[in-house]
């Protein structure tokens, strides 16, 4: 009869080493001090909700210094900020947004129920930082529609901009199909072009054949 060594001493040692490696894994597991509070699906839902933007006409009372529920943060760099900014806004350059002090400050605002509004030159510039803050759980962070550029143009008549809609983003300014396919002869070809299921490269699943066993 073939006999195996019966005392599993080495097994105990090996499994213990294995165990220790896993414990070490737990110890060295770094939990970043900033963590996402939203899963991507939540973020996706969030960005299509209303109330993510602060509209320029809502700024009027803030600029006048009568609105304590809003805090404006200018995320442009110091130099640009110094050349002109919305009165009352504080400057935190985008590079520094996730510094500990800034996050602490943000948390204070959040606890006090103050909305923090980020703005850059345009809405696009503040879009990324705004999404980041929403993802790490600061629901009080908003973005200024139109950005500083729009504000600068309308700073004297902010209240009147309520009826203006040019700062709304995400809308089509043209009827693309009409504009782009202006000549009748080509419009048919372009439209069929786009409708055709486009052949695209997909990630190739690893070929199983080569593997075998």
């Amino acid at each position, binding site marked *: *009869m*073939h006999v*195996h060594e019966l005392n599993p001493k080495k097994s105990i040692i090996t499994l213990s080493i*294995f165990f220790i490696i*896993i414990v070490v*894994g*737990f110890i*060295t*597991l770094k939990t970043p001090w900033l963590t996402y509070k939203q899963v991507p699906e939540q973020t996706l839902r969030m960005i299509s909700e209303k109330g993510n933007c602060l509209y320029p006409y809502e700024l009027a009372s803030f600029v006048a210094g009568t609105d304590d529920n809003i805090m404006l943060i200018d995320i442009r760099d110091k130099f640009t900020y110094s050349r002109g900014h919305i009165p009352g806004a504080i400057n935190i350059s985008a590079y520094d947004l996730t510094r500990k002090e800034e996050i602490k400050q943000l948390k204070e605002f959040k606890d006090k129920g103050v909305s923090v509004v980020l703005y850059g030159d345009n809405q696009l510039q503040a879009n990324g930082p705004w999404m980041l803050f929403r993802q790490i759980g600061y629901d009080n962070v908003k973005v200024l529609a139109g950005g500083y550029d729009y504000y600068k143009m309308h700073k004297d008549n902010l209240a009147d901009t309520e009826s203006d809609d040019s700062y709304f983003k995400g809308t089509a300014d043209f009827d693309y199909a009409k504009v782009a396919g202006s000549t009748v002869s080509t419009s048919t070809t372009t439209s069929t072009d786009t409708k055709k299921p486009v052949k695209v490269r997909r990630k190739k*699943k*690893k070929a*199983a054949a080569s*593997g075998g*066993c």
Partner: protein
Amino acid sequence: MGPLIPNGILTGNWDFVIALLLGIAFGFVLEASGFSSSRNLAGVFYGYNFVVLRVFFTAVIVAMVGLLYFDYFGWLEMDKIFILPTYLTPMITGSVVMGFGFIIGGFCPGTSYTAIAIGKLDALVFTGGLFLGIFLFSEAFPLFQDFYYSGDMGSPTITDMLGISAQWIAFAFVVIALAAFWITWIIEKRVRKNITPYKF
């Protein structure tokens, strides 16, 4: 971080050196555990030697648990590793044929290589048979080409198919395997009383 080669951390020429080293380790473990003896291997089906079951299932549960921990710690990206594709009907057929091959031949490919290394002629014949079997399959391939590709289900994991999380699957495997170890220990003791010891 890992897997190293698919993630491009290790590249190119090291592939085959690594393959050789991993193969050596694999062969060493197989031989040292007693897989180079067909009577040891077949013993699992007759209850006199459960070495196959023990080694096999210990390896499976350790690997499963370890891989999940590695994934958890972020050391290994589980979605980047190769998952064996599933072709349901050909795989069931193939595994039944392999089951017959195992009990008649007493080896499986990996173990037969190690058995050749220590001078077993039956292992050599078995490997010859393997060669012939694959050759016959390849020659007759057009006959069952359709069958070969039938039942294609992509590369599903057990989680995909059963809807149980990988952690629970690993846990279930561990519990079942450990229970099996204790039960087979009792069986083995009983069976061995009625069997004449064999030399090799």
